[in-house]
Every structure is written in C-alpha cells, then in structure tokens.
C-alpha cells in the first residue's frame, strides 16, 4: 500500500488506468443502455417506466460506494497518514455527489408515474438526501482545508463519521415502514427481478463503476498536478 505513497509511482499506474477504465466503462454502458432500452420487456405493473432502473440502481450504488471509499481513505489518512488519502478523498467526493444527485433525480422521475408523487419524506428518500448534503459538506470542508495547507485530517474525521449514514440508507427499507419498496437484489436471497429484465443491470452497474473510477483517478491526477504547480510557483516567487 505504501509503495504507492510516492505520487510518481501512483501516477505511473494511474495514467494508463484512467484511459482503460473510461473506455471499458463506456463500452459496457453502451451495451447496457441499448439492452435496457430496446431488448428487455416492460414490467407487468409499471410498463416501460421500469427502464429507469438501469440508471437509478447504479447511481444509488455509486452514491453509497463513493462515500464508503471516502471512509476507507479517511481511515488510512487518520491511522497511517497515507499521503495520497486526502487526495483520494477530495477526488471521490464530487463523483459520489454527482451519482447521489442522479439517484435522487431519477428516483423522483420514477416516483411520479409509479407512486404518484415526486417526493415523500420516507426513510429511504430522506436518508439518501442527507447523503447528498453530506457530500456537499465534505467537498466544502476538504477544499477549505486544502487551501489552508492542512493535511486533510478534519475532512477525514468528517468522512469517517458520515459513513454512519450508509447502513441507515441500506436498512431503512427493512427497519422502517417506507414508501420505497424493499431491496430486490441481495447476496443471500438472490434477485426478485426476472432475469429477462435484470440482465442489462450488471452491465450498467459495472459501466458506471468503471467511469466513476476513471473520473476519480482524473481528479486525483489534477489535484496532484495542482499541488506541484503551486509548489513551483512558490519556489519561483521566492527566487
């Protein structure tokens, strides 16, 4: 792990990985979206509306996985003082926030024709909205800390404590009565989505995940480049 503490070593791998992940992600997304829009049958109850599933579910997954990654980076920042951890946290947050917002937007659009409402304050919807606000708070805090030349410890504590929201989002539909239905896919129980409708979902899930990873790597590289530039400017100003 600490072999990659050296930014030069990290960049050597991150540079080619960005392109590969982006390419693979876009190909998978194209296949998944075409499959989901053209080849899958409509749902027996919802009709064609069900197709928003192929965007909504990956968005929810990445909104939550994004914060889980921030929490992991936060731990390695607090405990091991890993030099790239703060960079990773700052890079993950905008991507995660985007997917959390996409999840809320697609959910709202989906809710209108199925439930008959754009928004309801039930457990699942509210906890997901809080996750989005946590992202905004994290972005503001982390960038403020960076400008003051901090090492990212405050943002890391916020990232770790904010992870408490993740189990709440996940279990909200089990613990509380909610308007949002229970989970369709679980490790133990398999899937309650018929295979004919399900198959494009892993494609868009993997596709969005690869794009998410590529964007995060891009932002990390941009952050490192900015640090380098700032150091160089300081040096030339001192001369």
């Amino acid at each position, binding site marked *: 792990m600490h072999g990659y503490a050296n930014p030069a070593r990290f960049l050597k791998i991150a540079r080619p990985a960005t392109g590969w992940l982006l390419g693979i992600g876009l190909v998978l997304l194209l296949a998944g979206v075409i499959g989901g829009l053209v080849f899958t049958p409509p749902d027996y109850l919802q009709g064609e509306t069900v197709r928003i599933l192929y965007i909504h579910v990956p968005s929810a997954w990445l909104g939550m996985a994004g914060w889980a990654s921030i929490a992991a980076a936060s731990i390695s920042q607090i405990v091991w003082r890993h030099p790239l951890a703060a960079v990773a946290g700052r890079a993950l947050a905008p991507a995660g926030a985007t997917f959390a917002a996409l999840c809320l937007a697609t959910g709202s659009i989906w809710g209108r024709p*199925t439930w008959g409402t754009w928004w309801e304050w039930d457990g699942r919807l509210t906890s997901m909205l809080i996750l989005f606000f946590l992202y905004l708070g994290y972005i503001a805090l982390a960038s403020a800390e960076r400008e003051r030349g901090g090492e990212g410890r405050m943002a890391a504590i916020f990232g770790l404590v904010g992870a408490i929201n993740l189990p709440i989002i996940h279990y909200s539909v089990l*613990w*509380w009565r909610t308007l949002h239905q*229970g989970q369709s896919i679980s490790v133990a129980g398999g899937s309650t*989505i018929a295979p*004919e409708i399900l198959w494009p979902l892993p494609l868009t899930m993997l596709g969005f995940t690869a794009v998410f990873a590529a964007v995060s790597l891009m932002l990390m590289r941009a952050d490192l480049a900015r640090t380098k530039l700032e150091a160089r400017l300081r040096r030339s100003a001192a001369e």
Partner: protein
Amino acid sequence: MMVRPKHQRLVLVTLAVAAVLGAVLLAMWGLQDRAAYFVTPSDIAAGKAEPDTAMRLGGMVVEGSLVRERDGVSIRFDVSDGKAVTPVAYRGITPDLFREGSGVVAEGRLQPSGLFVADHILAKHDERYMPPQMANEVAAR
C-alpha cells in the same frame, strides 16, 4: 512495551466507529415507531392511531373491495395488512399503479367511526419486476 502511535490511532478509530455505530443503532431502534412512514390497519385495530389527526395508512388493497361511487370520482376500498382491515374512502384521481391486490399508502384522517377518509393516495409497489407474460403465468398458477 512501547505502543506505536500508528497502532494507538488504529485502536482509537476502531473504538470511535464502534461507539458511533452503537449510538446510531440505539437511535434507530428508538425511532422505529416515529420514523415509520405509515400506520397499518393492525395499529388502528390496537387503538394506536388517534382519530382526527393527519396520518398515513399503508397496506394492501383487498381484492374485490374496490367500489366506485355513482359520481365517478369517489371510491371506497378496504386496506389490509393480513391481520386487520380498515375501510377507506377517497375522492379524486388515483395513481396508475393503484389497484386491487397491490400496495397503497393513503394520507388522511381516521374518523371516530373507524372509516379512514383519505385526501391523497400513493401506490406502493413491491420489489418484484417481471415481464407481463410471466406475471400472467404466476397469476394462473
């Protein structure tokens, strides 16, 4: 024995996470009744729901209970959670997914007579998704 700062921090972080997690579990357990999005017919039968206060009622629309009144926009139906049944009256347009045998959340007030008068109806669907012909096969079985 010398404790390395790295390990000390690891122990501290683990303890902090465990403490916060415990606090959240307690809070959620305590919130269970209040965070519930709707009450069920069983709650009403047990006298847990106060009449004439705004609330949401959730359950399944009982098959064969849906009656449309003569004016065309008023409906009556029964909501069940498998243990108790509450009659509901509603006037207005229902969502597309509102149908007998499917989930529903009704916003409104419980009358002292036991009738739930709804002023807003939401459809609640379950976690199953399938093509129409498969649903017919399931229904035929």
